[in-house]
């Protein structure tokens, strides 16, 4: 699915707010045409990163290239970048005003689609922003974010506050439109269990640095639960990165992280332990809750001075 849409190269990007370092020498790539999940706990720099990519903010140092060019004051590139942040980057007026504005400002904006989506979410386009609930505002953001159809579309926690049926309607609408109009999509979130199967790639930020950046399937295949008698589970996990541990009476469940090894299945059978899947949400929680994870591809140790 890659190829159409803007790719992003971030090199050695640092952003400081006064004494606080929001991003610390971040390097990563976002593949053109892929759906990338940008994951991280609150305050780990997701919004800052997206704001720099969208040229809303200048970096302290380092560089960002979008479709091969610096997006800062670059009309061609900026026209192809859409960033919708939580709460919505749209006008503080009637929803129709935002539709009018986007129609004039964004060449690929599909007004029919926007209106259909608003209808799906039961939003009256004549409603004023101030009269909408948080969930409804998120639904407007999501609708506009999809319909703007920019070559690089970044949706930052956009579906927070939406109820479950609305969120699923959003996922379905996004996927359907992506299939018809392939483009680069970045979804940032810390709630990932509902959407992780839509990701082709995953970037995990922790404390302003890149903890992991890889294919979602590759990441998924590196997490395994090992369940069995405590001694057996411990024996199986020997020499592996244990990122989670749960005791269930005499039974121990360990979450291990690392490439599966040949013979794992036979080894597990011999020891009498069961191997199970770890979903991305669990892996994310384990990896980002840990003070440090050996083996995770973290470029540097980061203790951000606060």
């Amino acid at each position, binding site marked *: *699915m*890659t190829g159409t849409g803007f790719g992003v190269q971030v090199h050695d990007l640092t952003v400081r707010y006064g004494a606080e370092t929001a991003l610390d020498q971040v390097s990563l790539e976002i593949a053109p045409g*892929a*759906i990338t999940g940008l994951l991280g706990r609150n305050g780990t720099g997701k919004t800052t990163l997206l704001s720099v990519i969208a040229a809303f903010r200048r970096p302290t140092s380092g560089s960002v290239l979008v479709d091969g060019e610096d997006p800062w004051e670059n009309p061609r590139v900026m026209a192809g970048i859409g960033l919708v942040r939580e709460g919505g980057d749209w006008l503080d007026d009637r929803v129709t005003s935002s539709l009018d504005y986007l129609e004039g400002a964004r060449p690929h904006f599909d007004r029919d689609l926007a209106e259909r989506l608003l209808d799906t979410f039961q939003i009256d386009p004549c409603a004023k922003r101030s009269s909408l609930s948080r969930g409804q505002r998120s639904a407007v953001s999501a609708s506009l974010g999809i319909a703007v159809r920019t070559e690089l579309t970044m949706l930052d926690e956009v579906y927070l506050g939406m109820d479950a049926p609305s969120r699923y309607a959003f*996922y*379905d609408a996004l*996927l*359907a439109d992506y*299939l018809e109009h392939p483009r680069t999509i970045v979804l940032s979130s810390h709630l990932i269990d509902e959407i992780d*199967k*839509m*990701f*082709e790639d995953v970037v995990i930020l922790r404390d302003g640095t890149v903890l992991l950046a890889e294919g*979602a*399937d*590759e990441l*998924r*295949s590196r997490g*395994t639960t090992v369940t069995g008698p405590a001694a057996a589970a411990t024996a199986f996990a020997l020499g592996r990165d244990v990122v989670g541990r749960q005791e269930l009476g005499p039974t121990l469940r360990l979450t291990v992280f690392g490439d599966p090894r040949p013979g794992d299945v036979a080894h597990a*059978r011999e020891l009498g332990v069961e*191997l*199970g*899947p770890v*979903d991305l949400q669990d892996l994310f929680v384990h990896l980002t809750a840990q003070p440090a994870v050996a083996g995770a591809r973290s470029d540097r140790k980061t203790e951000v001075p606060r």
Partner: protein
Amino acid sequence: MNAIFDGRDPIYLQIADQIRDDILDGALKEEDQVMSTTQYATTYRINPATAAKAFSELVDEGVLYKRRGVGMFVATGARAALAARGRERFFADVLDPAVSEARRLGIDLEDVIARIRLDAAAQPPAAAPDSATPHSTHDSTGGQP
């Protein structure tokens, strides 16, 4: 098909397995068209690249082939090839674990054998399903009497 992709394997391996199973079971016939990546993506709310990865694995194996601009189809001979591969793996992947589980549970292996004989007697002589492929692959795994 009611797949819920939550096993240990990456989703694309599960999709590939499911298509193989559907071919073996006859739910997908040779020269049938399989669902498109778009259909997979929207039906299961997964990334289309995930489905595409499964297809490319199956194309490499010769199970599926692509008709340009039309879609993916089950290759002629795919069922026989999958069955042959399954027979090769049957003893190691299915029977050996069953035997060790029986031992673990204290089930007499004679009882297991008797059960298999009973099943064999109840079935009409094994008509190879579908295109009646002769059992050309009696090999290493060694046939029991």
